[in-house]
């Protein structure tokens, strides 16, 4: 018979306010094999842990039950405490009497006390049969993969590479930078976005530790933390980038122009072109859906003019395999498809544009060379209306969340506009102004005061064309009056949504997304950059809307978490996983199909199913599915489970 100990935590009044801890301690102390039973106000505190350690030492305990909060809070704490006294940590179990008892039964104190006793007695049954286990050691590949080459992915990749780790950086577009390359100046310091970004991009391009794959997508991922195997599809650029010297003659001579999504429909690109002028890498790609050669074979201008003979019309997509130990998902955002909005006239009225289109106008290398003009007639707008919270904060019809960047970029855009058109007037329809980071509120107030921005608190009801103007009907709730503006141009601050294809990617990575498609973190406060799958980390707007400062901070946090993970070449994993009784297993293979982690496979030579210990997460699906009861979970055997059940019924 093992000598067991029971330690009951008051958790201040969280448990003791409902459960009579003293009587529970006394009753459990009377159980035959319980050699020690104690209660304390905060078991997780240092004096609390000291009580456990002393009892193990003095009473020679061989198993411990701590009755306290959820094991996700302090299981680790107490297992470490017993380990320091030489006890195997897997002989310590948590009886959750807070979340599963005191918090939910605050009005039934007597019954809660009885339930707490039962939970502890059941956990004692478990501990009686617990085996001594050792953590599983897995060797890891000390490199990282980063999916997405925007400012988030770039920052994470550079930090990791500077930390000495090999980094694989995958970007779906032909050049680095993501949405930041579309921006003109950034708030709150009005620094031009591109120069600093491109400096970083060039650093990445020539970094010996970074393996950069642009115009590439993650097609498949296998494996587990420490040992991921990626399949990358390198899309055909139709240009041999190794030979291309970036001279641009092909672009100059290409006869095909198409309306560029990068320029938000305000400008054009050639069928062979860079993503943006001065892009990194400075290599062109042939867009086959626009190129005449691929349409009817009628044009080979780029091939004729290329001095390096770098054009490859016959190039095929290429698949390459890479191994990494951890993955950063930095897939970024898109704007809510504005054409899907039933209001505001986007798509019908040419002078209604979105915030990114205005950024392109402000950019000196953009479609208007930095001049702000009406798309309809090229004149300078003298009255400009900004509408905030377009598709954000509208749970009934669009997105319930705040997109976080719009308040600041609208103020910034209104400021830049006022500087360019001093006699113009910006009107900004808003619901609340959220300027919550360093220097933001000061920037906003200074801009409003100095530039005379007219903020109108209220929403817009109608936007329609009227005699060459865009007429806006709305309300100013501060006066309670309807307002009407005959504007020259309207700018919509559209909601941020996750990039297309994130859901697919997430399912390949076995990471989860929320109902809007944003990747979910393991814990919103305590593990904000880890995904729910070990080894998969998050950075940037793929996780939630955020501005550049926050994105960079988060990406660096992600990188440092990964550096910690990769700092050793062995990874210790919980041994609480499935195992197979080889004498019973019939080799039917049902477990292989039900395993969500691809941790079960058939050993054809022995005719049985085996468990891949590094992949198994101990979920128990195979145990429930096995028709022969050949699978068991370590320290959660059917004998243990049945005995625990008997305690309750």
């Amino acid at each position, binding site marked *: 018979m093992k000598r067991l100990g029971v330690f009951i935590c008051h958790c201040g009044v969280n448990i003791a306010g409902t459960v009579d801890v003293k009587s529970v301690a006394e009753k459990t102390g009377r159980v035959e094999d319980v050699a020690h039973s104690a209660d304390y106000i905060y078991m997780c505190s240092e004096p609390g842990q000291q009580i456990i350690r002393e009892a193990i030492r003095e009473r020679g305990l061989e198993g411990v039950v701590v009755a306290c909060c959820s094991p996700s809070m302090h299981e680790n704490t107490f297992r470490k405490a017993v380990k320091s006294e030489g006890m195997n940590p897997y002989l310590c179990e948590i009886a959750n009497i807070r979340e599963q008892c005191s918090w939910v039964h605050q009005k039934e104190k007597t019954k809660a006390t009885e339930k707490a006793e039962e939970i502890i007695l059941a956990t004692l049954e478990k501990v009686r049969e617990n085996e001594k286990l050792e953590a599983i050691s897995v060797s890891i590949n000390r490199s990282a993969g980063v999916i997405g080459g925007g400012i988030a992915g770039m920052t994470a990749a550079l930090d990791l590479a500077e930390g000495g780790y090999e980094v694989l950086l995958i970007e779906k577009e032909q050049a680095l930078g993501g949405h930041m390359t579309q921006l003109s100046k950034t708030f709150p310091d009005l620094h031009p976005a591109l120069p600093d970004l491109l400096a970083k991009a060039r650093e990445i391009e020539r970094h010996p530790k970074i393996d950069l794959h642009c115009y590439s997508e993650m097609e498949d991922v296998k494996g587990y933390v420490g040992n991921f195997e990626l399949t990358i599809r390198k899309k055909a650029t139709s240009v041999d980038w190794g030979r291309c010297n970036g001279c641009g003659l092909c672009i100059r001579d290409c006869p095909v122009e198409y309306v560029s999504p990068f320029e938000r429909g305000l400008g054009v690109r050639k069928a062979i072109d860079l993503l943006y002028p001065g892009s990194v890498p400075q290599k062109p790609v042939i867009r086959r859906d626009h190129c005449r050669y691929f349409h009817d074979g009628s044009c080979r201008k780029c091939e004729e003019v290329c001095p390096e003979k770098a054009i490859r019309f016959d190039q095929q997509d290429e698949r390459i395999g890479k191994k990494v130990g951890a993955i950063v998902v930095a897939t970024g955002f898109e704007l809510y498809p504005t054409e899907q909005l039933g209001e505001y006239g986007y798509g019908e009225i040419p002078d209604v544009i979105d915030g990114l289109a205005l950024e392109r106008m402000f950019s000196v290398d953009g479609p208007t060379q930095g001049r702000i003009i009406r798309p309809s007639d090229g004149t300078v707008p*003298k*009255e400009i209306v900004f509408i905030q919270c377009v598709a954000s904060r509208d749970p009934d019809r669009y997105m319930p969340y705040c997109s976080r960047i719009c308040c600041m970029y609208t103020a910034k855009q209104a400021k830049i506009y006022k500087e360019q058109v001093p*006699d*113009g*007037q910006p*009107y900004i329809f808003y619901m609340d102004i959220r300027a919550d980071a360093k220097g933001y509120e000061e920037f906003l*107030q200074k801009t*409003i*005061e100095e530039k*005379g*921005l*007219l903020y*109108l*608190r209220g929403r817009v009801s109608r936007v329609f064309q009227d005699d060459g103007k865009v007429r806006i009907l709305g309300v*100013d709730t*501060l*006066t309670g*009056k*309807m*307002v*009407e*503006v*005959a504007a020259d141009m309207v700018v919509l601050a559209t909601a941020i949504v996750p990039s297309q294809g994130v859901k697919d990617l997430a399912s390949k990575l076995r990471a989860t997304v929320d109902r809007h498609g944003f990747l979910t973190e393991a814990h919103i406060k305590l593990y904000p950059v880890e995904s729910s799958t070990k080894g998969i980390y998050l950075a940037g707007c793929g996780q939630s809307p955020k501005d550049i400062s926050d994105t960079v901070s988060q990406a660096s946090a992600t990188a440092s978490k990964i550096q910690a993970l990769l700092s050793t070449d062995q990874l210790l994993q919980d041994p609480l996983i499935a195992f197979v009784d080889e004498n019973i297993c019939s080799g039917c293979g049902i477990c292989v199909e039900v395993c969500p982690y691809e941790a079960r496979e058939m050993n054809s030579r022995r005719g049985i199913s085996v468990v891949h210990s590094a992949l198994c997460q101990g979920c128990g699906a195979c145990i429930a599915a096995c028709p022969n009861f050949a699978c068991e979970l370590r320290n959660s055997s059917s004998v243990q489970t049945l005995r625990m059940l008997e305690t309750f019924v």
Partner: protein
Amino acid sequence: MKIELTREKVHNEFAKKVELISGQNLFACYQCGNCTAGCPVAFAMEVGPHEVIRYTLLGLEEEALAVNTFWLCASCLQCTSRCPKGIDIARVMDALRMVILRKKDRKDHIHVSEFQEGFLEKVPQIAFISGFRKFLS
């Protein structure tokens, strides 16, 4: 009622005059209402001081000048000391009074010669000061 906003209206002559006389930037107003919240005579005002500022900013001259707000203002400076943006609201109220009083067609000025004998001795000095400010400017 609907307000038609234009850039001329936002930078209207009326608001400019109020800003010039008071030396205050009306765009600085948060519309937080701290002035109205602390005003000892707000209970009797048709609209609070912050609303008058909003009307002025939007170029609603008629509405702004029709209310009793700035006439009831006792220039106690509570609003000025409370304003988080450092706007001297009492000065703005004063400026609104002056905008009206500077209109040429007014005939309701105080004539000291018409005061009854002994009146000057009875009335507290502060009443004169405010009277002169309000009715003689």
